[in-house]
């Protein structure tokens, strides 16, 4: 059932104000045709508002929304080739499951609406429950009905507003894979809203991280993870150790002075505008990239080294062990170490240094403004 109608979605300078409060600020987004796009951000950052504007349920204060190159900004919701899976599912309680799924087809006067609805229910493995009422279904089943109800219409763009939010963890994982499969089969452009970073990264081709009504960074999940461009992204998407310093050396690799210690970062891994001598930059590294250097041993060359500091906590999590290391003025840093053989034995109270490859370092512009948590 690959959709012949799938289309790209574009937002140009879309803003939404509620009275004096700006929920969404000048959003520019391009969602390529047939892609699985995730909109990720903390609660209240404007994700739902953005989706509602795309669906036509909310009018943007300014800006243009186009679908498949056609401007739909002023088009009423029921005339847009878009369907939504609502955060609360919004299944019609007075209709059977089958009639819920057939609702959109009937409005479009598609022939054989009920037969097609039944086929739609089959793709979510619920054909046997067609005669029930929505309140006789479990949460996961309701979620599938909501999905089928939107999908059967073969929309150009499918909007999903935290569709898995109400499900338990196991069912969530299962549905994530299922959604991914359905998207690949149908080839429909998916815009998936979530505040679960893991969900966004496992499912989407492209992730946009939103914060306070703005897109902070947009790109493939791996790129966002490897090279976050703001402190917010660095901490919202996984965790990061961050320190602040000033550039003292320019070249292929920048030299940065951090409280008397010289750290290095490839210039290509620093966000633009922070590469001149004297510029203030934040350097970061992911906890799993950091190695603990016990007293007496030496870090490998080509590493950035910080410390010594004191180990304040060691937690065993199964796959890995997590260490908290207090570096004094530089704050508490985290280290995630795989539990493979050869890791040094480290205890709370030990004095250690931290080391990581220069190539794993990333640089962010400016002062430490906001923290992600």
């Amino acid at each position: 059932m690959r959709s012949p109608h799938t289309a790209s979605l574009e937002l140009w300078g879309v803003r939404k104000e509620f009275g004096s409060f700006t929920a969404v600020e000048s959003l520019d987004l391009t969602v390529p045709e047939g892609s699985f796009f995730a909109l990720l951000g903390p609660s209240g950052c404007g994700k739902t508002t953005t989706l509602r504007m795309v669906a036509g349920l909310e009018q943007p204060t300014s800006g243009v929304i186009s679908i498949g190159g056609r401007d739909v900004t002023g088009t009423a919701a029921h005339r847009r080739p878009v369907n939504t899976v609502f955060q609360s599912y919004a299944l019609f309680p007075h209709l059977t499951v089958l009639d819920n799924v057939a609702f959109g087809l009937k409005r479009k006067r598609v022939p054989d609406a009920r037969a097609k609805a039944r086929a739609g229910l089959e793709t979510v493995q619920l054909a046997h429950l067609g005669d029930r009422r929505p309140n006789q279904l479990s949460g996961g089943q309701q979620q599938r009905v909501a999905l089928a109800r939107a999908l059967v219409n073969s929309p150009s763009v499918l909007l999903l507003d935290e569709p898995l939010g109400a499900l338990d963890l196991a069912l969530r994982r299962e549905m994530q894979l299922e959604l991914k499969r359905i998207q690949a089969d149908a080839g429909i452009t998916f815009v998936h809203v979530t505040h679960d970073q893991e969900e966004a990264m496992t499912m989407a081709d492209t992730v946009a991280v939103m914060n306070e009504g703005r897109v902070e960074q947009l790109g493939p999940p791996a790129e966002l993870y490897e090279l976050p461009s703001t402190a917010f992204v660095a901490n919202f998407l996984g965790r990061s150790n961050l320190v602040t310093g000033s550039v003292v050396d320019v070249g292929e690799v920048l030299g940065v002075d951090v409280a008397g210690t010289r750290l290095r970062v490839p210039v290509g891994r620093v966000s633009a505008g922070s590469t001149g001598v004297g510029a203030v930059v934040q350097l970061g590294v992911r906890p799993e990239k950091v190695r603990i250097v016990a007293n007496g041993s030496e870090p490998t060359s080509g590493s950035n080294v910080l410390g010594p500091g004191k180990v304040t906590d060691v937690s065993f999590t199964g796959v890995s062990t997590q260490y908290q290391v207090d570096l004094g003025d530089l704050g508490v840093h985290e280290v995630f170490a795989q539990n493979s053989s050869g890791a040094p034995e480290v205890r709370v109270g030990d004095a250690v240094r931290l080391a990581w490859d220069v190539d794993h370092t990333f640089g962010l512009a400016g002062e430490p403004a906001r923290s992600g948590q």
Partner: protein
Amino acid sequence: MTRPVTRPVTRPATRPATGRLNRRLAGALIPAYCALAFVFLLAPSVYTVLYSFNDGGRRNLVWQGFTLDNWRNPCGAPQVCEAFANSLQVGLLSTLFATTLGTLVAIALVRYRFRGRALANLLIFLPMSTPEVVLGAALLSQFLTLQLQLGFWTVVLAHVMFNISFVVVAVKARVQSMDPRLEEAAADLYASPWQAFWKVTFPLLVPGIAAAAALAFSLSFDDFIITNFNSGSFTTFPKFVYVSAARGIPAQANVIGTAMFVAALAVVIGAQVVAALRRRVSGAGSS
């Protein structure tokens, strides 16, 4: 609407013997008192039913003996059935208009934002908080000023007026309990506003609208004061009873009253039983 009570807790925790006795006493006292209260509440209805079997002829005030004649010939007294038919007509017509107008207002008040909402709310509230004599007198002044002929239509106009507010209040509660996302989902699934209303909003509001209509009909059917002011020589059932009260009310009025009483009771009790059965079925289904 409930305010939390915050009061310092200073009482000693237990008062064993007297506490238990009090509880026992209170336990029996309230049902006993309520039984008396129900006797008080239902006595007039029981009398109305009894006197429909009274062999009292024209002046049905004193018990004269049991008869079924009144029931065999419910239209036997002059005008009584005509008045009853008039009340039915006025009731149905005014219910239709008031329910339609009131439902639209209720939806608008809950679902839409516009200037003058507060004023509109006040306009809905005022007729309910104005005594019927004043409503009747005001409308009569208006009809007199306009030199309208009093009769069937003026009564219908008046009943629609006092019923709108009650319909708005009853339907509003229902609209408020309805998830607005459902209408948005309908729009998202290609339903025009018109289709969204008829396919989603209306079916979900039906129980509220039906309750409002039942309320409107009974208020209209039972209204005396406003009708009395605005009916001229047109007679409704309550007006017929009131006017004949001076000379004595024919037992046929009690027959009609009793029939209405029993019919309404049957409907409501039936609804209760159906609801109970449904609860049992769904309870069994889910466990």
